[in-house]
């Protein structure tokens, strides 16, 4: 008799625990699903995402010159490389680079290097686009913020930046017209 009532009680307790746990679980799921929209609203909005492509006309860009255009609020560098710069970029040994990548994997047309002009360290815009700029020890770009040196392929060669300058996704619409994004 006594054992019987005890098991009965245990059974009730178990039922109650189940109800408590499932109530907490439902409340938790409810709170999380309400929190998500509040958090996700901070991610890029549809119109911000829609502004995501830019066209660049390269016909007036002479060898040795560079231009900077704005894409998604950031600078994009296009440099028309000289034969020597191309040679440098292709012949550099990638073995001891921090972020080893062949030059041929970073260009579509080897004459034009297209890069996101944002230092991969903490986001400054490296120097090297204008003719008078400091270009760093490897002749490409130099970030003055904390001293990162990039080569003619935009690869990190010296300084605190962890990776090469990013190559945006782009395509050649014609020989001298590219679309970024």
């Amino acid at each position, binding site marked *: 008799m006594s054992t019987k009532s005890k098991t009965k009680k245990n059974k009730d307790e178990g039922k109650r625990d189940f109800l408590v746990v499932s109530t907490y679980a439902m409340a938790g799921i409810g709170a999380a699903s309400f929190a998500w929209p509040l958090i996700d609203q901070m991610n890029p909005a549809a119109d911000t995402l829609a502004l995501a492509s830019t066209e660049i006309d390269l016909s007036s860009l002479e060898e040795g010159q560079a231009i900077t255009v704005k894409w998604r609020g950031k600078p994009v560098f296009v440099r028309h490389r000289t034969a020597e710069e191309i040679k440098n970029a292709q012949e550099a040994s990638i073995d001891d680079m921090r972020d080893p990548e062949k030059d041929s994997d970073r260009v579509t047309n080897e004459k034009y290097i297209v890069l996101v002009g944002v230092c991969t360290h903490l*986001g400054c815009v490296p120097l090297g686009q204008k003719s008078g700029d400091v270009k760093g020890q490897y002749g490409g770009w130099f970030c003055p913020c904390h001293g990162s040196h990039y080569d003619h392929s935009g690869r990190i060669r010296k300084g605190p930046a962890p990776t090469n300058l990013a190559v945006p996704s782009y395509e050649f619409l014609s020989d001298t017209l590219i679309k970024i994004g």
Partner: protein
Amino acid sequence: MSKAKFKNPVVKWIDHRLPIFSFMDHELNHYPTPKNLNYFWNFGSLAGIALVTMIITGIVLSMNYTAHVDYAFDSVERIMRDVNHGWLIRYIHMNGASFFFIVVYIHIFRGLYYGSYKAPRELLWILGVLILLLMMATAFMGYVLPWGQMSFWGATVITNLFSAIPLVGESIVTWLWGGFSVDNSTLNRFFSLHFVLPFVIVGVVILHLVALHRFGSNNPIGIDVKGTQDTLPFNPYYTIKDLFGLGVFLTIFAAAVFFFPNFMGHPDNYIEANPMVTPAHIVPEWYFLPFYAILRAIPDKLGGVLFMFGSIAVLFVIPWLDRSSVRSSQFRPIFKIFFWILLADCVLLGYLGAMPAEGIYVILSRIATAYYFFHFLILFPLLPYIEKTKPLPISISEPVLSGSSPASAFAFREKK
């Protein structure tokens, strides 16, 4: 609560229903305070006044400020030139942030010197560190609002710190920005948060005060209050002392606002933000420089970020790192020397944070960073095993009344 002390019938009527007057009488009037507090104990109330000043001037600035990338810079220039007294209000807010940090840093070093973080005041200390963190977030976002070159590039560099986090770093940065770079969405959310965080600070300050009033203030000799002979009622003794300190503070503050309003700022922030051009030399506001120096001292991106946040995180746990039961440095001869070394180290880090990250500056930054962590992580726990502390006086009133040094107070006890 002792009753019937209010003569005014209206006050009496209200207090019976809502004991707000009894509460203030108890916490601000009779509140027993150690009688030996020195002027370093002024900085808590000064910090409170600085916070209120920031909130009042901030609300007024918001009435004239436009949080949009195309208008923000011009709206601040309009505040400076066209809005009635706008220049004054903005200069108070701008310099107020600097003075707020000066006051809070002194307040923190006071705590470190006199061991105010030790039991039973651990939570009081932790709430204080939390306030420091919130202040830093608030000041960082506030500095972005005028949308000058330093605003923009400071925001870029600091938000990019999060990209050091493995795997999710980039997504976090995009989420913080609400886009692919610091832009209008970023400015808007920073304004929203800059507006609200100070009120969160007010909430934490209230908790800080509740924790303070639980055991009352620590004091320069760091021993517990033994009875009423060791204390004075807060009012009028400390109200007047705090007010005198406030007068001195306001004099210096006013001198800065009226005569050197841009001394602590950076001229590049009077150039409108340009996402295409980074200024040659980016420096944060002076109150972030020591942390910036730590960031740059570490040659690895993630490592730098971890050490920088670690330098604040370590402050949360020092009540448990310092294993000595003696609070005040006055009785800890070796600790006292190291306290001054720590202070010098922090000033040095501040200087190095303003210098370019190259050559000797990098080496010095590394040494100074190493010392900072050595101080808290190694010296704090180990020192009590080596250090012979000086004998403590029996009570607060004794050395005060006899006008003698603590050592002779101890001798007095020995004789007895």
